[in-house]
Each structure stands twice: as structure tokens, then as C-alpha cells.
């Protein structure tokens, strides 16, 4: 395959050109064929060590990276902060330098502070993959979202996507806004003014505060997880009112295109951002997102790490 990446780290979707994203999708296609076989492994990353360094709780992203790396035959170590020397007060940089000194070829990092993966990448030689940093970015999530849309819709260019909910605090939204606009998708942001950034700068997006208006004639509705503590910080008056104004229900979806696809990065607060999912299950791409996520992460790990070590 000649879909190599110019970057040796994946820190932001801005690291990737449209052609490189398409290359990642093609690579994911070939890896996903594997998962239908009885022996799901390939030896591409045999002998490489990948460390999953998670400073925030995560089930799907960490597991997805772990499965992806294991299918590529990499050795995977999972470190979560509750069981590491972080609780003994070790600094982030010391932890990462230690992991590198132990011989890791790549570090997948999730951290509550925005900018950490980029900052770390300037201080280590190994590959750094951003698995979500603060409010900043979650590039593999955006890639798997785009890939899911491509698989379900057969194309990306020309589609209209409504991203609904807490845009302000969402790294998933940030990565998707940038990746989608880059791939020729029209992006709408839908939510209360308190949860949409005031300064949208270069983003070519339309903002809606009315949900029905926002999803009207959309091809895809992507709803975001609402952190339950937003109500206590006065971003919204109550979860009940939020659910009423911004919850995705079968009624709301009648405004969208008949073949609308509904996405959610998970984990879902049922009854809040998504209501009566059973009744529009045929439109849901949520489990596809999880399934395709493994293929996307295999592709990313393979394209970053299979070619030898960074700088070679």
C-alpha cells in the first residue's frame, strides 16, 4: 500500500490532507476484511510496543486501540493513571520519558488538558497518537465518523451534517468540524448559545439554536454526549429542558432527509441526547462507528508505525 502519511504523529486532524484521509480509509477497508476471517491477525507491527496512556477513564477508545494494535501483532501495554506512579505525583513529562526509555515505539495518549499530545510529541522520539486531549481534539474519532458516513452514504462531498449539543466542550466536535469541512461536507452546529463557542474564526459552519431548523434536510445528525455537570455550571437550566430542546427523537428526525444517518460518539445518555432510539434503529450508525473504529485505528497505527521508527 502506498498511502503513507507525511506526519509521524497523529495530533490533530489538521495534520492530514484530504488525500491522506482517503488513504487511511482505503487502508481501513483492507484491514476490516480481516475481521471477517477466523484468524484476525496480521504481523505488520510484530516486535513493536505500543503504550496506551490514559489520564481519563475510557472504555471504547482504549479498547479499540488495544484491539487494533493486537490485530497488527504489536505488544500493547495499558497504563491508566489510577494504577500508575502518577498517583505518586510523577509529572506527565517524566512519565512519558520513562515509557519511552522502557522502549515504547508509540504512545497513545488521552489527557484532560488540551494540547498535551502535541507538547509531548516535541519532547520524545516515539510516535504520539492523540486519543483525545481536553476540549481540543480527538482525531481518530473524527476519522472513524467520516469513515462511517462514507460507508453508509457512499460519499462525503456535498453532504450536510448537523452536529448537535455541547460543541463548546467537545473535542469530538472540534476534530469533526475541521475534518468534515476539509472533505467537502457542509457543517451545521446546533445547540444553545451557552454551549457553542462565541468565536468561530475560520470555521465554515452555520449555527442554529433551534433543533428542528438545524437538522432540516440534513444527511447526517451527529449528536454529542452532554456532560451531566453542565447543568450545575449554568450552561443549561436542567437536563430535562435540554432533553426537550435538543434531544434527538423520531419526531425531530422527520425534519431531516428520509435516509438520515444518526451518529453518537458514545457513551450515550439515553433519554437526554437520544430518545426512543429503538424506533429509528435503522438510521443509527452508532455500532458501525465502534466497528469501523477498529479498522481506522489499525490503519492509523499501521501507516504511522509500520515503516520503521520516527525520523527514519
Amino acid at each position, binding site marked *: 500500500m502506498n498511502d503513507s502519511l507525511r506526519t509521524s504523529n497523529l495530533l490533530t486532524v489538521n495534520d492530514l490532507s484530504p488525500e491522506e484521509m482517503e488513504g487511511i480509509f482505503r487502508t481501513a477497508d483492507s484491514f476490516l476484511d480481516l475481521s471477517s476471517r477466523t484468524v484476525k491477525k496480521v504481523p505488520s507491527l510484530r516486535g513493536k510496543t505500543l503504550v496506551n496512556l490514559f489520564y481519563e477513564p475510557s472504555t471504547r477508545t482504549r479498547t479499540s486501540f488495544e484491539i487494533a494494535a493486537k490485530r497488527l501483532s504489536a505488544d500493547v501495554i495499558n497504563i491508566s493513571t489510577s494504577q500508575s506512579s502518577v498517583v505518586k505525583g510523577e*509529572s506527565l513529562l517524566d512519565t512519558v520519558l520513562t515509557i519511552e526509555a522502557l522502549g515504547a515505539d508509540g504512545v497513545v495518549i488521552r489527557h484532560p488538558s*488540551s*494540547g*498535551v499530545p502535541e507538547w509531548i510529541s516535541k519532547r520524545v522520539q516515539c510516535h504520539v497518537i492523540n486519543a483525545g486531549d*481536553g476540549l*481540543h481534539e480527538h482525531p481518530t474519532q473524527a476519522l472513524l465518523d467520516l469513515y462511517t458516513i462514507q460507508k453508509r452514504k457512499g460519499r462525503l462531498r456535498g453532504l450536510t451534517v448537523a452536529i448537535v449539543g455541547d460543541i463548546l466542550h467537545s*473535542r469530538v466536535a472540534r476534530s469533526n468540524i475541521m475534518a468534515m469541512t476539509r472533505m467537502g461536507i457542509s457543517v451545521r452546529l446546533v445547540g444553545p448559545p451557552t454551549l457553542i*463557542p462565541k*468565536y468561530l474564526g475560520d*470555521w465554515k459552519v452555520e449555527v442554529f439554536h433551534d433543533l428542528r431548523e438545524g437538522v432540516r434536510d440534513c444527511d447526517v445528525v451527529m449528536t454529542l454526549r452532554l456532560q451531566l455537570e453542565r447543568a450545575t455550571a449554568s450552561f443549561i437550566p436542567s437536563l430535562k429542558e435540554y432533553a426537550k430542546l435538543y434531544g434527538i427523537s423520531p419526531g425531530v428526525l422527520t425534519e431531516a432527509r428520509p435516509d438520515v444517518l444518526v451518529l453518537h460518539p458514545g457513551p450515550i445518555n439515553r433519554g437526554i441526547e437520544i430518545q426512543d432510539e429503538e424506533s429509528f434503529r435503522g438510521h443509527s450508525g452508532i455500532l458501525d462507528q465502534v466497528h469501523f473504529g477498529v479498522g481506522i485505528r489499525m490503519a492509523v497505527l499501521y501507516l504511522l508505525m509500520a515503516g520503521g521508527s520516527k525520523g527514519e
Partner: protein
Amino acid sequence: MSDLSHGHSFFLKDVRLVDPAHGLDERGNLHVEQGRIVSHGSILPPKTGQIPVFDGEGCIVTPGLVDVHAHFREPGFEYKETIETGSRSAVAGGFTSVCVMANTDPVNDHPGVTLDIIRKSQDIGLCRVFPIGAVSIGLKGETLTEMGALTQAGCVGFSDDGYPVKTSRLLRRALEYSAIFKRPIIDHCEDRDLSDGGVMNEGWVATELGLRGIPNASEEVIVARDLEVLKMTNGRLHVAHLSTAGGVRLVREAKKRHLNVTAETCPHYFALTDEAVRCHHADAKMNPPLRSEEDRLAIIEGLRDGTIDMIATDHAPHAPFEKEREFDQAPFGIIGLETALSLGLMLVQEGTLDMGTLLYLMSVRPAKVFGLPRGEICPGGLADLVVFEPDDVIEAGVPEFFSRSRNSPFRGKKLPGQVRMTFVGGRKVFDRREGKS
């Protein structure tokens, strides 16, 4: 300790003498005896006596710079800076008088702390150090400090800097009470509730970087509060580190209403915008934060029209291990004593300010507002002087700063202007050729 062998006398030849307070800008020589200027102009070295003769090599000599806002971190945070390293940084940057903020540990809310700072700085004998006392005990915003005792011990103003004066009521009392001693209340204007854990300017850069923003209104709301409270007292308000266009507008209007208010800004607010956060990480993190281009231009306009009275550094040293970490976890603040003059000279080079105005903003005006001693180039004038070459180019902080810390977004940058020598009371306290001592 001070070198008394020459009796603080010297002859400085071949300099450009600039003193904006006297409308002076001419070539000539300068003669200092016993820490005071005897004569200047086309004069010859005295024939009698054995005083040193320094060659100014055509540089500017001007009254030493005065900084009304620095953090020397001693007592309590000596790993960031000490009175000694802060003083070395000051004289290397051309400053001869520096006011130091009260947020030490223990807080300078007691005359014992004030006296200790003054005694240490005198023992070190580099720049003059003037403590700022806390407004409230422990900076907690509850109980007023004993401003009488603190003034007597040597405090030249009062501030809870790092925090705003917490409540309108406390501010009112502080302004009323400090009026007895004719000392200003210096306020760090920030509505911390509105800042809501923000770590940089609220704007497009913060949106893109996913960092929590501090809106301009955070500053403006408290500037407006302070001015309205000031109006009903006989006190004096000094607004620290103005960073927003709205803050400048409020102070400008207040001055038109003849309120007893003065204001400072810092070099980074006219030299940089929030774009700097992208490449300088936590070395571009301070509070108030770097703002937008519109704000930057408004700050410059404020300096030009006299709304902003002075340039202060807000020199805020932090150790590398504190700054080299997660952006949102790193402390606010950058060092500034060794780059302030250079950044001011950039405005002169651009033609935004003339040299006299810059030196007025960095020396004459701050000394006057805070009642501090300052150099004057006139017979009998105090020989607190700086000799600098505006056309030199320096690489800031290379190989290292004199400060104990290095948290500056200007580190490694080529900047105009180099301080060659600094004199305090006629005594040479810094000479670039002697390097780091």
C-alpha cells in the same frame, strides 16, 4: 556590598543625554560626584581627583527605568527568584527602582516582612526595591492590613495582586483608608467568576486550541467597578496591567471625569497577541492573558494619548518544572525586566512612540505617580542612570537571563537595544562587558 572606593563619582564621555522631564536630548559628557550630577554637556573631565572615566561610545544615557510591578518571590518562593537575582535582572534591564508585589510567603501584610525585604535589598545594593503591601491580610480579601504601619515600614502602595480586591466594600474601605497615607491602591482587575477557570484569552485561538477562555469583560467589569467606587472616595486607584480595549476606554473616560486614577500596561500586551500561545505554550500564559490585535492596538493608543501612564513589567518568574507541563496546569506569568526596554524600543523603531515618550513612560511618570526617587540629568540630579544603545540587537535570554527563571516568550528572540551600564546613586551596578556576575 557597595563599592565606595570611588565615592560614587565618575565621568561619562561621549553619550547622547536624554531626559524627557527636562526636554533634554543632546550629545555630550556627564560628570557625577557623590551620586549626584554635577554638570553635563560639552564639559571636560575634572583635572583634580581620580574618578573613573567611562566611554559611552555614543550610547543614550537617561534616568534609570522604574518598574512599579514586579514579583521578586522572596520570601517563600526563592526557587523562582530571590531579591538578589531579581535585582540583578532589574539592573541588567536598565531598571534602578523596582516595586515588588506582596504575594510572597509569608504575604507582605506585616511590617516585619516589609522591613526584611528592604534590608535584604539594601544589603544586595543593586537596584532600589520598594515593597507593595497587601490590601488584605493574607490576600484573602477580608480584613484590611495595617496600612499605617506598612507605610511607615516603607510600603509605597497596596495591592492584593494576583487577585482583585475581592469585594466592592473592601475596595471602598481600602481607598478611603489609604488616602490618609497618600498611597495608591493597585488593583488586578479581574472578575474571577467570569474568568471561570479560563487559561488564555477568549477568542478564535482559544476555540481552536480547545483552551478555556478569559473574556475581555473579565477585566472591564472590575475596572468599571473600581472607578465607580473610586468616585465616592478620596483615594487613589492604580489599574495594574491593562490588557483590553474596553479597559483603556474606561480609564480614558474616567480621566476626563477627573477621577484620581492611573494605569499601567506591560510590554507583552503591546508586543504580542493570543496567537503567541500557539508556539510558546505556557511561556505565553499570563493573567490577564495576551489579547487580540484590536486590543493590542488600543493599548498602544492608550500609551500614545496618555490614558496609560506607564509601562510596568509584571515580572513574574516561575521555575521550568512549573511552566513545562500541561498548559492549563502551568502557572500564570512571564519574566519581563530584561526585555521591557527592548520591547518599548520596538515601538520607537516602528515610529509609534518617540524616544522621549517611551522613557517618560518607563521612568519619569512611574516615579512621579509612586513618589519614588529617580534619576535626573540636571545639576544636583540623582545619578540613577542607564546607558543603552538602541541600535544594538540582542538575543534575549541567550545564553541565559540574569533572572533565576527563564519563562519568557521572547527568549531567543532578536530584539533591539542593549543596556550597557546601569548606575544607582552614582555607583555602577551593571556593566554588560563584565557579564553575569
